[in-house]
């Protein structure tokens, strides 16, 4: 026995005699993970979170979360002798007087952007492939929670340096709090310890940013991954892949090496961005004061859609009985986002109700084979896109020589018109893709080669698909509309009424599809040809 093997044996022995874990470990070290590029999106979320923990901890060693006023005398000359908060001054200190400090700030900020972007991409992958279906609804809910908290965490982090840009963001957050009916001004005064901006807000959000939310993230991510582990990963359909198996590579060593290596690659890319791509140069904005503002200010992209919603809101307020309700703030700031996120969280349950499907699903859908779901997803993306365009309306206007007024009206109308159009278009595209699949399975792939038949006619040679390809294109289940009975067992009209009808209609829409070709159809065609 080699020396290293002996050591490994001893370690395994030590652990097992104290935990009895040998059996569990043996099984799990050979656990199978399917391989696909889209499965790396979730990994990027995890890795960027770890990068945030590491770079954030570095920043805490110098960052001073205080709104105490100080006079700056660090090495950034243009702000010499300017009065500012300690948190702004310490962020300047990190940027100019701590070696690697600016790098870490930029890595932290880039990692935050990557974290959010990867979470959103991951969520889209889960949605469009139907990975949220039973038994994975809990993980979908955790995911929606993580995205929501990620937006909050990012906003708080971005607010910490107390520069002119982020202070303006806090001002807007305060206005949203203040607009909440009945308790708004109380909430605002409690959060800010009195009148805006006060002296306590930054220290308070600091605790939330570095302790409370990261703790919650850690707990949620742990549960999320344990569930993935326990329920085993989903896989894309293909030859040899069924609802009853997982095809892929074993955890040790292949998956470990790939996933571990990938962590370093993500970290490396983030470090590269931090090194060369300047982000949030707070020294250019100056310290926060409520009487000033920097023009053309843009929030991070994960906040941009909220900004766009606020910008397009109608100028509506209700004044009655000595009270004010600001629809122009509540609608875009709380009500619409609330509906969006609630809808997103409930989607798996709504879909299951419509299809009446109570089975487990471990094979993913190709998006075209679930046209209704894909269209709903595309519609939601279109909504967010229209809103985002309005969030950048000032920048777009100057770039493309348009008027802000024009863009605002375009998006105000577009928000109602474009998403439904996108829904219809996407559904049609899915159905024609299904039709195209059907064509090539039955008639083969066009090769572009022409052959002259004996009697002089030219025909194009069609190449038959491989059995693997044919299987992949036809394996999906056919959606059947729910048979919702119109009458109950006694022949009385269905007591479910509207709810039942709605369900029947939706399940009908959900079942619209081009039938997948079957082997017998293919045989019949072949017979006809020869």
């Amino acid at each position: 026995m080699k020396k290293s093997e002996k050591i490994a044996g001893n370690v395994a022995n030590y652990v097992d005699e104290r935990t009895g874990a040998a059996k569990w470990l043996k099984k799990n070290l050979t656990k199978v993970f399917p391989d696909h590029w889209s499965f790396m999106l979730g990994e990027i979320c995890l890795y960027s979170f770890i990068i945030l923990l590491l770079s954030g901890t570095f920043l805490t060693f110098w960052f001073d979360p205080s709104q105490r006023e100080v006079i700056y005398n660090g090495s950034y000359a243009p702000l010499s002798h300017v009065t500012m908060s300690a948190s702004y001054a310490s962020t300047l200190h990190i940027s100019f007087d701590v070696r690697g400090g600016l790098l870490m700030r930029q890595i932290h900020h880039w990692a935050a952007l990557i974290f959010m972007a990867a979470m959103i991409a991951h969520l889209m992958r889960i949605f469009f492939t139907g990975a949220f279906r039973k038994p994975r609804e809990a993980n979908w809910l955790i995911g929606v929670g993580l995205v929501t908290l990620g937006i909050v965490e990012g906003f708080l982090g971005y607010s910490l340096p107390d520069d002119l840009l982020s202070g303006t963001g806090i001002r807007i957050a305060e206005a949203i709090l203040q607009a909440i009916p009945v308790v708004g001004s109380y909430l605002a005064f409690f959060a800010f310890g009195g009148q805006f901006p006060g002296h306590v807000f930054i220290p308070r959000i600091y605790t939330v940013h570095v302790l409370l939310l990261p703790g919650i993230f850690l707990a949620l991510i742990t549960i999320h991954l344990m569930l993935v582990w326990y329920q085993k990963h989903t896989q894309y359909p293909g030859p040899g892949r069924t609802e009853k198996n997982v095809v892929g590579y074993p955890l040790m060593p292949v998956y470990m090496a790939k996933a571990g290596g990938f962590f370093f690659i993500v970290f490396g890319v983030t470090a590269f961005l931090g090194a060369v791509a300047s982000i949030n140069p707070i020294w250019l904005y100056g310290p926060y004061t409520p009487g000033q503002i920097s023009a053309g200010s843009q929030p991070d992209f994960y906040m941009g859609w909220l900004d766009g919603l606020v910008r397009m809101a109608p100028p509506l307020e209700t004044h009655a009985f000595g009270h004010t309700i600001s629809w122009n703030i509540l609608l875009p700031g709380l009500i619409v986002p609330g509906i969006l996120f609630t809808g997103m969280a409930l989607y798996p349950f709504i879909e299951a109700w419509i299809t009446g499907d109570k089975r487990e699903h471990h094979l993913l859908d190709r998006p075209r084979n679930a046209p209704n779901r894909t269209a709903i997803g595309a519609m939601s993306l279109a909504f967010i896109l229209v809103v985002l365009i309005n969030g950048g309306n000032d920048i777009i206007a100057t770039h493309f020589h348009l008027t802000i007024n024009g863009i605002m009206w375009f998006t105000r109308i577009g928000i109602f018109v474009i998403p439904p159009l996108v829904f219809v278009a996407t559904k049609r595209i899915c159905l024609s893709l299904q039709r195209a699949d059907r064509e090539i399975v039955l008639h083969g792939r066009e090769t572009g080669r022409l052959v002259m038949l004996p009697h002089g006619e030219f025909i194009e040679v069609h190449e038959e698909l491989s059995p693997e390809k044919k299987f992949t294109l036809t394996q999906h289940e056919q959606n059947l509309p729910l048979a919702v009975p119109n009458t109950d067992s006694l022949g009385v009209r269905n007591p479910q009424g509207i709810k039942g009808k709605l369900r029947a209609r939706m399940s009908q829409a959900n079942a619209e599809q081009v039938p997948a070709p079957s082997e017998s159809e293919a045989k019949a065609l072949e017979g006809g040809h020869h």
Partner: protein
Amino acid sequence: MSNEISKFSDPGLPEHIHRKSDSDPMAEKRAEQQVAILFLISALGTVLTIASYIFIKQGTFVYLPILGDVEASQLFLGLGLTISLIFIGFGAVQWARRLMPDTEVIAERHEFRSEEIDRKEFVETIKERAATAGLGRRSLIKRSLGLALGLIGLTPLVMLRDLGPLPKKALNETSWKSGTRLVTDPGNRPIRPEDLEVGSVAQVLPELPEGTERTLENIGTDAVLLIRLRPTEFNLDAKRLSWTHNGIIAFSKICSHMGCAVALYEQQTKHLLCPCHQSTFDVTRAAKVIFGPAARPLPQLAISVDSQGYLVATQGFTEPIGPSFWERSS
């Protein structure tokens, strides 16, 4: 469901194609060397990081194409870090791809739902355990526990009460009073109408009593914009016109939408624009909203001059400034 029956059959996992490094010892050797080289490049990256940390002074700039002037210390630290990290990653992935077994394996999956008998027994067990605690019978205990648990939820709410004072009338108040002088910001000097040319804007604050320090909270409620037009350009009712002085009109600078500083004045159109959400206010018509999400005009401050010719407020604001809140009455 005839097509269910005659679906195309599953041909099973495609045959595994072996890599060159699986059979050719030379190729294997080459792959091994390649991985080792990648790891060594990472080591060089760390050397670069440490050298940059020690030898490059902060505040040294280098010129790079596209990026322009870049601070050298952080650039080279970052590049060193990038190389050291990314090449460990490349090495590990290459190792996995070239040298580790690349045959796909199949693991079985089982339905999560337990056997019928286990499910039954589970329900029985719960019922039985619950019965031993008398959960079904002891409604007095259940109700009092419910009450206790419900009440304990109040504790954190009560305990957070001291987070801040009650708003009382604070949201309705500013430092402006009848006779308060307007002073420049920055500079803190009182101003006369002559200091302001037609077409210009100035940010002003109220003069505070001797010895009072101006806080950010003050600025957040007191900031005012002065704009001077030709008196004939106004389109105001008599009361509002009387609040102006020789073509000078004063508005709260705190946006009536969400409180940003309304900072942009367009001289030609006489519009004030808030950069946050582009609410646009027409100065000639008492800051009426002509575009954007704001629902109310900017509050106007009534001004005049005092005996020494300095601009003063003739009264405080007649309505709360800034964003709306529940208790706001108009």
